[in-house]
């Protein structure tokens, strides 16, 4: 019964419902020990779909298709003795930028312009990382770098509307006028203290 309600919530991963339902199924079977703090009591399966919407509120991170990238590992540089000589921890990710349809066209062109130093003659964008001791982490860093590149290419320069620009100019002028007014007031005070013996 609980399994049906969970499956109805249309989660991204179909197996998820099965995994969640395991606990409630077990309870129903009565073979497992259940305390008052067991997971099915702490997180009862909901009847409505409101619980599933939290993930969609955050901006989705770029989905990088791993099958379209060429990942290769090699030995890192730097000190480290025998370990750095033997362990393949440097990760290199390359993909053909022009044919990467998981990136929007305009963004692709912007990236080709911004990172032209990282693109080889065959048109492949190459990203490397050897910051970490672990291959997996270096790969994650490469992917993060690609995401940063895409984000930077997507962002548009801030367009200041006419009204805002005018407001800013007015503000500056007002500040200057106030400053000069205060200055004149101070000047008259100082003048009044002068004793003219003529």
């Amino acid at each position, binding site marked *: 019964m609980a399994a049906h309600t969970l499956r109805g919530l249309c989660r991204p991963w179909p197996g998820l419902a099965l995994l*969640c339902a395991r606990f409630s199924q077990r309870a129903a079977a009565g073979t497992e020990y259940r305390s*008052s703090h067991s*997971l099915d009591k702490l997180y009862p399966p909901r009847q409505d779909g409101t619980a599933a919407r939290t993930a969609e509120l955050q901006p989705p991170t770029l989905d990088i298709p791993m099958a379209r990238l060429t990942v290769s590992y090699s030995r890192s540089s730097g000190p480290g003795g025998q370990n750095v000589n033997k362990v393949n921890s440097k990760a290199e990710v390359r993909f053909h930028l022009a044919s990467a349809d998981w990136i929007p066209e305009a963004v692709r062109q912007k990236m080709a312009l911004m990172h032209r130093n990282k693109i080889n003659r065959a048109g492949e964008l190459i990203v490397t990382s050897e910051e970490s001791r*672990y291959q*997996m*982490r270096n790969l994650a860093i490469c*992917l993060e770098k690609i995401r940063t590149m895409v984000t930077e290419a997507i962002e548009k320069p801030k367009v200041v509307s006419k009204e805002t620009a005018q407001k800013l100019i007015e503000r500056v002028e007002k500040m200057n006028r106030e400053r000069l007014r205060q200055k004149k007031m101070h000047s008259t005070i100082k003048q009044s203290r002068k004793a003219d013996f003529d």
Partner: protein
Amino acid sequence: RGALGGSGHERERRAAGPGAAALPAQGLPGQPQAQPRLQKAERRRGRGRYGGRKCGRGHKGERQRGNRPRLGFEGGQTPFYLAIPKYGFNEGHSLRRQYQPLSLQRLQYLIDLGRVDPTQPIDLTQLTNARGVTVQPLKRDYGIQLVEEGADIFAAKVNIEVQRASELAIAAIEKNGGVVTTSFYDPRSLEILCKPVVFFLRGKPIPKRMLPPEDLVRYYTDPRNRGYLADPSKVAEARLELAKKYGYVLPDITKDELFKMLSARKDPRQIFFGLAPGWIVNLADKKILKPTDESLLKYYSS
């Protein structure tokens, strides 16, 4: 012993015992060979041997006469250990929780040698029985933590339960189709978990595991740490997120033949798989005694 012994061969003859001349030197044929008695090391004596004459003490002075000042004394200059001002680096160290590290390399080593069975859920009890880790609950150890050393060579599908786990370690295990859970054991439960037989011999009912203290509740309810008190749906989402971050395809464990084993989880109040709090395990008669009283049942399932 030195006073009794004379030269080497005399001592050996004396040790042989009466009637030994009748027995052959190598021992009776067909019987296990007796080990020859090793000569004891010669005591330090002068007279031109190594370790003799001045006996390593040097020549005159405090050194030879055994009157050197205490350790740390610098001849009157304010010693280092007094010149440096105090700072609370170790303050409250006896109240800090410690977690014994378990690297993925060590775990792979144990699995490869067959000391730990990957077809069963891996628990601290399993690891202690396999002598893979040594946990000392009396020394403020609160369990084990998964460390990422060996993440690149790890290739085993396991359902492991630890007390802390780093993100890369979680990623490495889930990449191979395994399941990680972090759970809390209070010191009493930890002692019982590490030494179950000793506990069963006491004849006391299994206690219920206590819930984590305030500062750890946040850790164990966080799906990113795969906490045992976290929402299972959020944990599944976190698995997908981690797969995206580290760039691997998350294997679908529901399609796995070992799915039932991989999804096996303890209740937050349970210490052992298959044994509930309140039960008494009688190892001698191979029986389990369960409480029947209403109030006890209510207490143990709360």
